[in-house]
């Protein structure tokens, strides 16, 4: 039933407007109350007090209207208690300091929320936050600037010209926090254009399996062993009929290559495991000053994992206040030594190699793999030799001699 809430709201309104608890004494109390209510005055909390007296509540505004009905019914009214905000205000009206302080508080909040207190940068991957911040500072957009003063459009253009790596920037001011979103330009890879003469050289050691030459003179035959950097397809054409000329060599040269991946796994190794004990340290950051909320600087654990949290105080959704509570969380760690059997260690080493294979040999056609283990000083060494087939050609500019 929502009436409970409505009653509470009514009480709050009554308190804000102020009301009087008064005692009425006389003989025709019911008649008096009827007269009062007929005037449209709301009365509440009527309770019998003595033989001929009631206690009741009435709003300040309506109190003066009681005089006429009281006189005509011969009833005496006495104020018992004054309640509500107007009376409170009246009581403290001479304490100007309180009012001044309150107004100053509001003014400070209002003015301070007009400044930028923090800058958040998101969307950057290759460029560091500091670099963008520095450029922002150079263009005049820094922490402590008044929000209305800064020309965002100009700043944006300025930054985009100063940082060509960025393709797009947006500065959103949310209260006292500036959120800078950037998008990095994807730089085109350096491609040797089709007109530029070039050779094709080997990027890895290998044995040639097949060479499909579209343009240029093949320097290798299937079965040839080549070293890294050796010429596969030449871009220099030299014929007796036409003479000497340079072309852009184009070819797919497939070669058999060898890869070796190694991994090791000790039979006894120490692992750090959280014990569940946690220790917090809090710091209050007011503007740019840090206030420690702890006494002891020392951390009770020798082995620990540290995590930082930041909680920014804000009013509503967008107005960030220059107050930040920083929490450092220390989780105690414990070293647990695990003993593995030889087979388990081998299994573990193999798993590591499989992981590595996925990472390093992706996109290559693996023809054969050979796994071998070696045990030395209680450490299992695993070695895996791969035979792959891949395109080993790489374009290289012809250097003029």
């Amino acid at each position: 039933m929502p009436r409970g809430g409505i009653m509470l709201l009514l009480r709050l309104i009554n308190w804000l407007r102020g009301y009087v608890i008064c005692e009425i004494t006389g003989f025709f109390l019911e008649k008096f109350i009827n007269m009062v209510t007929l005037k449209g005055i709301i009365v509440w909390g009527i309770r019998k007090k003595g033989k001929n007296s009631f206690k009741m509540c009435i709003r300040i505004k309506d109190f003066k209207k009681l005089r006429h009905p009281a006189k005509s019914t011969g009833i005496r009214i006495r104020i018992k208690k004054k309640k509500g905000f107007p009376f409170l205000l009246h009581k403290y009206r001479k304490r100007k300091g309180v009012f001044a302080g309150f107004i100053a508080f509001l003014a400070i909040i209002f003015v301070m929320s007009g400044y930028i207190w923090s800058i958040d940068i998101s969307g950057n991957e290759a460029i560091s936050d500091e670099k963008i911040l520095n450029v922002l500072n150079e263009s005049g957009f820094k922490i402590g600037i008044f929000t209305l003063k800064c020309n965002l459009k100009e700043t944006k253009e300025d930054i985009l010209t100063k940082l060509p790596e960025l393709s797009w920037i947006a500065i959103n001011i949310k209260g006292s926090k500036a959120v800078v979103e950037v998008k990095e330009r994807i730089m085109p890879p350096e491609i040797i254009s089709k007109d530029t003469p070039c050779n094709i050289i080997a990027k890895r050691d290998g044995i040639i399996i097949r060479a499909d030459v579209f343009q240029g003179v093949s320097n290798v035959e299937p079965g040839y062993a080549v070293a890294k950097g050796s010429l596969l397809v030449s871009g220099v054409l030299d014929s007796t009929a036409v003479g000497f000329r340079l072309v852009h060599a184009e070819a797919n040269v497939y070669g058999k290559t060898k890869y070796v991946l190694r991994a090791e796994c000790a039979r006894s190794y120490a692992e750090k495991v959280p014990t569940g004990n946690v220790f917090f340290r809090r710091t209050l950051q007011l503007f740019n000053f840090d206030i420690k909320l702890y006494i002891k600087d020392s951390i009770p654990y020798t082995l620990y994992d540290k995590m930082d949290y930041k909680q920014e105080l804000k009013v509503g959704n967008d107005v960030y206040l220059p107050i930040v509570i920083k929490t450092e969380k220390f989780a105690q760690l414990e070293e647990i030594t695990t003993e593995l059997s030889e087979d388990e260690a081998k299994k573990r080493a193999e798993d590591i190699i499989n992981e590595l294979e996925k990472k390093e040999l992706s996109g290559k056609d693996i023809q054969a793999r050979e796994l071998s283990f070696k045990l030395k000083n209680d450490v299992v060494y695993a070695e895996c030799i791969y035979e792959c087939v891949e395109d080993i050609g790489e374009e290289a500019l012809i250097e003029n001699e």
Partner: protein
Amino acid sequence: MARVRPSKSNKIKKQKVQKINKLEQILELPAILIENMPHIEMSGNREFIIEGSRGILEYDENLVKISAGKFAVTVFGRDLELKNLTDDSCIVTGNIDNVSFGV
């Protein structure tokens, strides 16, 4: 034996009431809409709300008598308090023992 006939004015009044009752039955309307009846609501034995009252006739810790036009409602109980009072509604709170209707 001479029959006692009802007087004419009484008869008309009776017919009128009957008509209203019939209309009520046909339309199945609550009585408050047609006649000037108060609306009464109670929450257990703690709260008694009346809308459409015509003023307080008597108030005491153990008894509240409220005029409702054609009749009066009397609430008996202990520690009775008039929680909210306007010209046409009233809330009585306390331990209500008995509610009676009478002229």
